[in-house]
């Protein structure tokens, strides 16, 4: 039982991160119609910024705020400068620009902060003894704090989408960009906001995730996370924010339980298995579990 709970706790933590990033990916997809391949690298970049600030003895909360703000700006600027001019050309062109951003940011991390791995300070008490006992298993404060913070963020996003004017305008833009424009919505600003929020969410996710293991801040850190988050977004349905969150959590928990109990699977084969499973789901249900079918007119 104890083992199960510990796997479960790990799974929920990972799942929460996947959920947050998947939500970010879906937000961008709905607004702009593309997957932000560079999402993980943006999150990593801002995590490095936060880390850099912690080494200058800036209080961690402030680091979080600054890094989140930086993420927001990074996302909004990317949309305005890189995406908006290119998306009218084609989907492939947009994907390639994002691929380029991915490469550039990742390389930039190495140039600015070096290629070693660093340990990131945690928002929550993170000593070996910082846990509470649940059913015999250890629930670390860092994990609990992560769950709560992610839940707050996700909750805030849903509140924004469904109960505010801005959220309505974002949903309208995602539904039909031209009609939104014709109704008086400043579509450009909405798109920038969407990307900004996404990158900000990514920033927080990065800062929450990295402290969970020592020495884990390195240039390769976010990439596997991005893959899992993309898998979750696909599984949930690329146009369903709720689906992304649910799928992310599911993925995290299943992954943790599988890698815990089934020792044949270990390391990164989980990613491959996750993807294969999702391919199968997509074959049966191309719009993902919670997405909506698209009718294409000839």
């Amino acid at each position, binding site marked *: 039982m104890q083992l199960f709970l510990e796997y479960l706790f790990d799974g929920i933590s990972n799942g929460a991160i996947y959920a947050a990033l998947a939500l970010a990916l879906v937000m961008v997809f709905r607004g702009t119609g593309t997957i932000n391949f560079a999402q993980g690298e943006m999150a990593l970049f801002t995590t490095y910024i936060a880390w850099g600030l912690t080494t200058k003895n800036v209080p961690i909360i402030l680091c979080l705020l600054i890094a989140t703000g930086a993420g927001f700006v990074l996302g909004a600027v990317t949309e305005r400068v890189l995406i908006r001019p290119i998306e009218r050309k*084609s989907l*492939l*062109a947009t994907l*390639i620009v994002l691929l*380029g951003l991915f490469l550039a940011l990742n*390389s930039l991390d190495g140039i600015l902060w070096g290629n070693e791995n660093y340990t990131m300070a945690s928002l929550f008490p993170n000593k070996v003894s910082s846990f509470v006992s649940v059913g015999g298993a250890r629930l670390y404060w860092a994990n609990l704090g992560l769950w709560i913070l992610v839940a707050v963020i996700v909750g805030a996003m849903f509140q924004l989408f469904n109960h505010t004017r801005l959220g309505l305008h974002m949903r309208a833009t995602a539904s039909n960009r031209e009609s939104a424009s014709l109704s008086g919505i400043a579509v450009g600003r909405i798109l920038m906001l969407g990307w900004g929020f996404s990158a900000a969410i990514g920033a927080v996710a990065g800062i929450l995730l990295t402290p969970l293991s020592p020495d884990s801040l390195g240039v390769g850190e976010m990439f596997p996370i991005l893959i899992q988050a993309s898998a979750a977004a696909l599984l949930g349905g690329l146009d369903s924010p709720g689906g992304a969150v649910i799928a992310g959590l599911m993925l995290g928990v299943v992954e943790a339980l599988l890698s815990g109990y089934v020792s044949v699977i270990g390391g990164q084969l989980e*990613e491959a298995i996750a*993807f*294969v499973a999702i391919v199968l789901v997509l074959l049966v249900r191309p719009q993902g579990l919670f997405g909506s079918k698209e009718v294409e007119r000839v």
Partner: protein
Amino acid sequence: MTAPDTRALPTLPLQINQGSPTHRFLQVFGLVLLVALAFLGSRANSFQVGLLTQALIYATAIAGLNLVTGYTGMLSIGHSAFFGIGAYTTGILVTERNWNPLTTFIVAFALCFIVGLIVGLPALRIRGINLALVTLALAVAFPELIDRFPGLTGGTLGLNVTLTSLLPPHWTGIGVQNRFEYYYWISVVVLALVLVLCANLTRGRTGLAMRATRDRETAATAVGINLAWIKVFTFGVSAAVTGVAGSVFAMYLGSLSADSSFTLTLSITLITGLVIGGVATVIGPIIGGLAVIYIPHWTEGIHQGETEGLFFGVILIILMFVMPDGLMGLTKRLTRHVVRIKPRAPTGPRPSDEELLVAHDQIAHPDPEGKGDTTLALS
């Protein structure tokens, strides 16, 4: 009133009729030039020849990717896996079964073709980004799969191909010391064969169907082009071509390690090369191959090589803004102002539905560059 001087200077662009003696001369000249360049390349020192060989191998791999992404519009981030399958096929057959490496090329081609067909099957139901993400999974899964079967593949320790099997045979007259020349020529020949294959494939009805799938998928279905066949088949051929490039790579490198050579990074490199060279062109992959080998080489000195990613990233972004059809596209656009090949007037049988579709498309959307304008075409 004097008659106008009809011997005035020719106006640009020069019109050359397809099939005319001038055209034939240009083609032969181009061919001779390429062969001369190839010979020139082989005269360099071993390091340079090695670099060039790698470039040509990558060019071959990119030519494969071009079929599926450039011509048919399906973005694949998984071609590193096909490259790896080809490489390991050759590596294993040579090392375990003592095969002649050149014969393994054929096996690699066939095997990758089949794997490509299988990978192409999801493409029937899944499109665009979703498909790209699925191919991403392939790229990520491949190194892991290799590591899981150390008995066959050497696992994380890697596979060393027995050197003696890779040596140039006597009839080539190349000694052990100069075996790099042998690998060079193999890469040249393989690339040439591949380019001929691709050129033929993309010129005929298949090529039309590919482009129709890329540009006007729903319309193509309506006209009855069998999309299923095209998508799956293209994936197969594309994988086979990239796979054979992997085989040559195995010969050249002599030792294989999935975690260093056949990861997602390779897939991204191939895409980068494709874009730099120019999608849906025959020469583009060559330029792309040269670019992805030489640019990192030149930037190696800067900041301990960390800047390679930054360079490529920035190049990709800038390219999409100013030159989405790559260097080859730019070249074509520039030369159109100087020289233009006029196609023969059709005298053959009534055009097929596919040809009508494409022709109608071109009338409705004047598109002299032949780039197409929706979904996955680049610009």
